[in-house]
């Protein structure tokens, strides 16, 4: 018998003829639950708690704000997704086309990407490998990550996000939830920002003109 058939047979034997399978009570706050307050403001507050830097601006100021945030970290060159051209005032952007290899990303040292959505309750940005988010390596290898969040894509809760990402999940896109910069608490539980992922996460929330 193959290992596969054997494991499955053992599982069936262990469960017996009629294992109980209760219905799942979903009494928690589900996707779409209505909430008071301003989700975008809440997102900014929560993301800042992780020591991500959060800046909010209008569409027309985006290039200037990205430029200022890049300058704040001494960044003059940034990688960016192949399909989305970002203007960053005073800095050169290097599109991921042809794909930048990890060593090049490491030497460029900074990246600007968009995002699929963001979660207010947890201050999380979500990248989905789509045109705005880019490949996973892009937002991982460089030490500085500038991440643009469109205000309209901010949802309240984790269930909202999971519902919104269901299509991505079904399409099998890679999904990355990012909540603050990379961190460790492995040494005496003291939090240290920045181990292997980007040490600096700069979030820019853009309010589109109505």
């Amino acid at each position, binding site marked *: 018998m193959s290992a596969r058939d054997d494991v499955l047979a053992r599982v069936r034997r262990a469960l017996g003829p009629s294992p109980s399978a209760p219905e799942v009570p979903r009494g928690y706050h589900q996707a779409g639950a209505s909430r008071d307050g301003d989700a975008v403001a809440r997102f900014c507050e929560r993301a800042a708690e992780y020591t991500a830097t959060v800046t909010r601006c209008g569409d027309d100021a985006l290039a200037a704000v990205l430029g200022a945030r890049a300058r704040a970290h001494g960044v003059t060159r940034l990688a960016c997704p192949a399909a989305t051209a970002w203007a960053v005032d005073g800095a050169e952007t290097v599109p991921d086309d042809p794909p930048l290899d990890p060593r090049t990303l490491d030497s460029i040292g900074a990246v600007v990407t968009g995002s699929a959505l963001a979660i207010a309750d947890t201050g999380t940005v979500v990248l989905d490998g789509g045109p705005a988010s880019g490949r996973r390596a892009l937002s991982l290898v460089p030490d500085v990550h500038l991440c643009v969040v469109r205000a309209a894509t901010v949802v309240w809760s984790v*269930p909202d996000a999971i519902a919104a990402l269901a299509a991505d999940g079904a399409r099998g896109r890679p999904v990355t939830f990012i909540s603050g910069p990379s961190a460790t608490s492995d*040494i005496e*539980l003291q939090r240290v920002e920045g181990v*292997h992922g980007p040490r600096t996460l700069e979030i820019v929330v853009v309010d589109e003109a109505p």
Partner: protein
Amino acid sequence: MSEGFPQAARAALADTQLRRNLAGATATIRARRAAAVAECDDWQELRDAAEAIKTRTMARLPELLEMLETRVTEAGGTVHWARDAAEANAAVAAVAAAHGADEVIKVKSIATDEIGLNEALAARGVRAFETDLAELINQLGDDWSSHILVPAIHRNRSEIRRLFARTIAKGRPLTDAPEELAEAARVYLRERFLSVPMAVSGANFAIAETGAVCVVESEGNGRMCTTLPRVLVTVMGIEKLLPRWRDLEVFLQILPRSATGEPMSPYTSLWTGVHPGDGPEEFHLVILDNGRTDVLADELGRQALHCIRCSACLNVCPVYTRVGGHAYGSVYPGPIGAILTPQLKGLHAAPTLPFASTLCGACLEVCPVKIDIPSVLVHLRGRVVRETRGRVTREGVMMAAVAKAFGSRRRYERAQRLARLGHGPLADQVMGRWTAMRDLPEPPAQTFRSWWRERQG
């Protein structure tokens, strides 16, 4: 002065240090968890849902495992099944051999510790690099995990500095500031992330409905391992499944809050098979039994398989917080280890573990999937008595007394003193058995405090 004295004193110091590290660390995580949980006014409802999802998953495991296999295969992945550790290790080693890889990078994975993957790979000439900071510390120090979430909780910063100074940061100036130690690990591992062609990971969850595999982590080493190498192998126990994508909305809320006390961990990664142009070109999923079907066969005990390894039960346990993880002699320490290890390895292999508890119930209260650890402990005690025909019962009863002693510092110290005199419940037979092959500091010849008092006197 006898030669043994300095050693005994050092052991005493180490023991005191260990207990201080543990007490401080677990108190800190407890407070963080409590604050994170208090933010959710639907916490109990989330737990109810999580418990039911897991129970349902186990009941439908055969069809869900087959569904996962189909989805992963459709998405370009390869699925391997392993009855036991040897088969799982052989599957990983075969992938390494097929790619001529003599090095692999690893994301923290308790399942791969359980099967002894690193040793198995080493025996075939493949070197495994742990990339999680704590796992790296343990690997360099030839030590092993004492906590599910913070595996090097038993080490303090100066020990880690000394360790790094003679290994990965040789010849470089290094202080014991955690920032500098983390930076040393970053520099050491970056080159490996950029060059090693194969990675091995565990999985926090796998979604049967879509084939997605999920890893939750903080440092970014998980993202590095699951993104940069050409080949990725994930080893997961059969119990890690969730039926639906939607179930993530429950588990991605309860896991980080219960584990690190954060609303979300810094990084949660989900991938499905192979994504052309983005990430590994080859993905292998090893589905592991290794005793899990034996656990599943016990109708009450099977809930131990619902565990999502958050470690909340460790941090509240009066026994764990005093003895630390090594005493449990398994990669699964604490209350969950006390019910999982004897079921996974067989009651004969760990007959005293079900007695290593005061049955105080704190673990059940914090468990995000509501595993009734106290009831399973009592149930397993009964099974030990029946199935080992009382051979270990006396020892077990003594173990229970020991556990009770651990419940209070005063009682623990008294027991420790008695043990040194060769009396009392901590005496060699029980402690010898319980700590066999374990790294628990032996009760020192003299406790540090009484040694100090004598010196002063």
